[in-house]
């Protein structure tokens, strides 16, 4: 079959833009466009080209504007891209603004009745009679709206030269177990495609051409990845309270638990409670951690605030649990469907009194998976609440990744004494630093030995867990907790350092900022600013930090919050090197993009 796109390849050999652009679909939420957008993204992915998919959505159920952006990039850059090259303008509410925001030379696919061609003359317009075509696709009025979405898939497919077989495969994957739905959708795509071939003349430079860059890769969002990490970490108790953008973490986990963690006799090897609030959720997680389960909860900023008192309790009484914080924009309700890295400081020192916590900072979906497992081990090793800090961009958007690896390490359940060990030891003091690493031994409720019981209390306690208000007892306890925290520096994930020989400029970043940095470093290099890059993967800092900052003249700490929270933490850690630290901050609620980082650094470098 000769396609329209293939036809024009011959015509415009020059100035072709292949596998390097971004597509934005503007719709209203609740219109069912998600399936169509996934089909588009998956088709391109199946054709071997690196993609990422981002859903920019309102905090609303139906009727408000939503945008889905697919970035296609042959070099594997998958951060947000500021410019849109291909717009599918389906939402009358925003169409005018959407078109105005396009870069010159972009293309705009829109319903003919929106009459968008007058808005911009430097944009290539393709106007499509969607209503008419949808009527051809189905007689059922109810389905027309949904199938309209598939018709734009057909239009884009024809313009970009997408492979029909891959489209069909993507549609089939989109509707598992619904064999009747697949042909209906495939047909709608075909109608859009055929109409385009017969009625439009391709006059733009954008093409998709097969590559081999995605073979064997998966697409997943960070929340599902973290859910899988928890599943394979052998989580047994889950307590949670719904909140965007973290809900899908526990929802995915619950699905997986019911699928893979029910015994042959139909009994569960796990327990899940949707708690009455986050306060109760973390209380349950701590109660379970105390009683010996691998427990967890997941939340976002507002929930973290509610958990504050209990988290300090968990730190002080030394109870393991794992808390996922999928960050969103605050304070308060803030922008619940936008991304942010502004919980770093408050989480690190969550609760009153002297408190500090281990925080893992995954920078990819693969790390959302592996760090989830790591977090459970660390929580039980260090007998303390451990946080995994991700964000909406990482947690809810679609990312390409190598398949996750099956854990090779056995679960680390930490220092727990059973009845036989107690009998052998002949003594037990819950808060005694026997090994000198600050980590004490614990026993679990239910242990059948007279030495086992101890009393957990949030008040001052002695090594034997009895009540105390003695100044030296309290100070000794706080010093031992500090010693334990220092020990954890050797156990948390080390940074990933990308060194550029002879670089004078360093970059430090964490979490989802990574993708923009990855791309920006190439841009900076092209602008004669070669950089070395330190991707922080956990708090507390590890020994590599000092060496890295010392090795560079200037270090840019790039993060997605207003107050330079990471820069401040590094300043506290390395006060003597503070003058080397510079800050790049992005806090619009949109994911940071590479050009922003490049522009900021070049500006501060006075280039």
């Amino acid at each position, binding site marked *: 079959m000769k396609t329209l796109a293939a036809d024009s390849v011959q015509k415009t050999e020059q100035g072709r833009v292949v596998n390097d652009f971004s597509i934005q679909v503007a719709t209203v939420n609740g219109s069912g466009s998600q399936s169509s957008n996934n089909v588009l993204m998956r088709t391109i992915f199946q054709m071997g080209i690196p993609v990422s998919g981002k859903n920019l959505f309102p905090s609303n159920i139906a009727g408000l504007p939503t945008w889905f952006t697919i970035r296609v990039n042959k070099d594997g850059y998958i951060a947000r891209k500021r410019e849109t090259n291909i717009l599918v303008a389906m939402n009358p509410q925003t169409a005018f603004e959407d078109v105005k925001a396009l870069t010159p030379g972009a293309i705009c696919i829109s319903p003919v009745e929106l009459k968008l061609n007058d808005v911009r003359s430097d944009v290539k317009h393709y106007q499509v009679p969607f209503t008419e075509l949808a009527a051809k696709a189905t007689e059922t009025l109810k389905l027309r709206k949904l199938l309209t979405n598939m018709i734009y898939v057909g239009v884009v497919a024809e313009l970009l030269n997408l492979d029909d077989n891959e489209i069909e495969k993507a549609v089939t994957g989109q509707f598992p177990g619904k064999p009747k739905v697949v042909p209906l959708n495939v047909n709608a795509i075909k109608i859009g495609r055929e109409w385009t071939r017969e009625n439009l003349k391709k006059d733009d430079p954008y093409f998709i051409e097969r590559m081999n860059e995605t073979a064997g890769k*998966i*697409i997943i969002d960070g929340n599902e990845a973290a859910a*899988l990490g928890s599943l*394979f*970490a*052998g989580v*047994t*108790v889950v*307590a949670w309270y719904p909140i965007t953008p973290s809900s899908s973490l526990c929802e995915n986990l619950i699905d*997986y638990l019911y699928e*893979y963690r029910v*015994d042959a006799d*139909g*009994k*569960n*090897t*796990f*327990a899940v*409670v949707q*708690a*009455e*609030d986050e*306060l*109760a959720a*973390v*209380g*349950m*997680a*701590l*109660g*379970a*951690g*105390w*009683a*010996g*389960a*691998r*427990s967890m909860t997941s939340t976002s900023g507002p929930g973290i605030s509610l958990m504050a008192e*209990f988290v300090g*309790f968990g730190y002080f009484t030394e109870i393991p649990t794992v808390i996922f914080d999928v960050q969103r924009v605050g304070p308060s309700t803030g922008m619940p469907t936008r991304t942010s890295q502004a919980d770093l400081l408050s989480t690190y020192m969550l609760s009153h009194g002297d408190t500090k916590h281990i925080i893992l900072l995954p920078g990819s979906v693969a790390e959302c998976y592996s760090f989830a497992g790591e977090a459970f081990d660390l929580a039980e090793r260090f007998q303390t609440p451990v946080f995994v800090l991700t964000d909406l961009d990482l947690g809810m958007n679609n990312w390409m990744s190598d*398949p*996750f690896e099956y854990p090779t390490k056995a*679960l680390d359940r930490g220092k727990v004494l059973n*009845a036989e060990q107690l009998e052998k030891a002949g003594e037990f003091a819950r808060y005694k630093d026997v090994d000198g690493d600050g980590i004490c031994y614990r*026993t*679990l*409720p*239910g242990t*059948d*030995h*007279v030495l*086992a*019981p101890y*009393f*957990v*209390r*949030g*008040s001052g306690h002695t090594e034997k867990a*009895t*009540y105390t208000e003695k100044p030296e007892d309290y100070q000794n306890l706080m010093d031992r907790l500090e010693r334990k925290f220092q020990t954890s520096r050797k156990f948390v994930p080390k940074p990933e350092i990308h060194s550029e020989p002879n670089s004078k400029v360093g970059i430090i970043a964490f979490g989802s900022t990574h993708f923009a940095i990855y791309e920006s470093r190439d841009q900076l290099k092209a602008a004669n600013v070669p950089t070395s890059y330190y991707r922080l993967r956990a708090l507390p800092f590890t020994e590599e930090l000092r060496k890295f900052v010392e090795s560079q003249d200037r270090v840019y700490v790039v993060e997605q919050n207003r107050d330079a929270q990471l820069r401040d933490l590094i300043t506290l850690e390395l006060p003597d090197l503070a003058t080397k630290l510079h800050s790049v901050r992005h806090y619009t609620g949109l994911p940071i993009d590479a050009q922003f980082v490049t522009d900021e650094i070049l500006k501060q470098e006075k280039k």
Partner: protein
Amino acid sequence: MVQSPSNPAQSTNRIGLTLADYKGAPSTLCDGCGHDAITAQIIKAFYELGIAPHQVAKLSGIGCSSKTPAYFLNRAHGFNSVHGRMPSVATGANMANKDLLLIGVSGDGDTASIGLGQFCHLVRRNLPMIYIIENNGVYGLTKGQFSATADMGSKSKVGKLNEYTPIDLCGLAIELGCGFVGRSFAGDPKQLMALLKAAASHKGTAVLDVVSPCVTFNNHEGSTKSYKYAKEMETPLHELGFIPFYEQITVDYEPGSVQDVELHDGSHLRLKKLDKGYDPRNRELAITTMLKANEEKQFLTGLMFIDEKKPDFVSMSDLVDAPLATLPQERTRPGKEVLSKIMAELM
């Protein structure tokens, strides 16, 4: 079972432990505090029932009342949590280890104010535990402020009048569908003992609202939570007798004069009706009787309501037999083939 040897000359219970084995650290509460009287009954009840202390976990919130788990069952693990949040900790502990017998002690401030939400949800989930509210109508530990259970018109130590409607925790528990609701008085050890034992045999949340006078801040003239008032006004609904599962039932009562409730573990609670003919299985009657008693300032005690058939949180959770906390890696980490399958689906 590994236990330290106890003096053979002392009398022991059916698992060979002495009363001393059920004691805790010495109390640091004020002399005469109602809470200590309740502690004494808890020690005795667990001793007499022959419950193995290591199978018990003691929990509490914050307050004078919440300190008391340190004063009983030294041989059980204990958890003094944060103010008003003991229910969530208990829920988590139960999820981790359903075989633990949980006993929680709270105060009227801890339960009816800061912890009201968690209390309601605990009851709603029917978490198996004994939940005792040591109700003195004040915040003892913060020195005498009114609590939400203080009766309307009751006076504080400094003479202030409480103008708000009290929260009746028994009424609330019944309304929420609690399957075991009892009210008693720290100064009525016999009744309290029967209720405690029955609560330990109940499968589900057993709420015991026990009036427990605060001698320092709320035992004066004008307090409806004082020893004097409670003693004078206590109106037991029935005489309670408890026959544990391991004892033969010997005495037979005349039919009609006694109501027999068989509890989950095979123990029996015998209610000898006093004049009113109260039926604690009748939820509507329980609610109307309580409303009327509150209006008439009557202090009704006894087993207010029981529904021993209600499914509890554990049975609803459909768990494997072994406590989740004890499951080995082989049972909690799915195999390599599971991950491969999931990865293939995501490709």
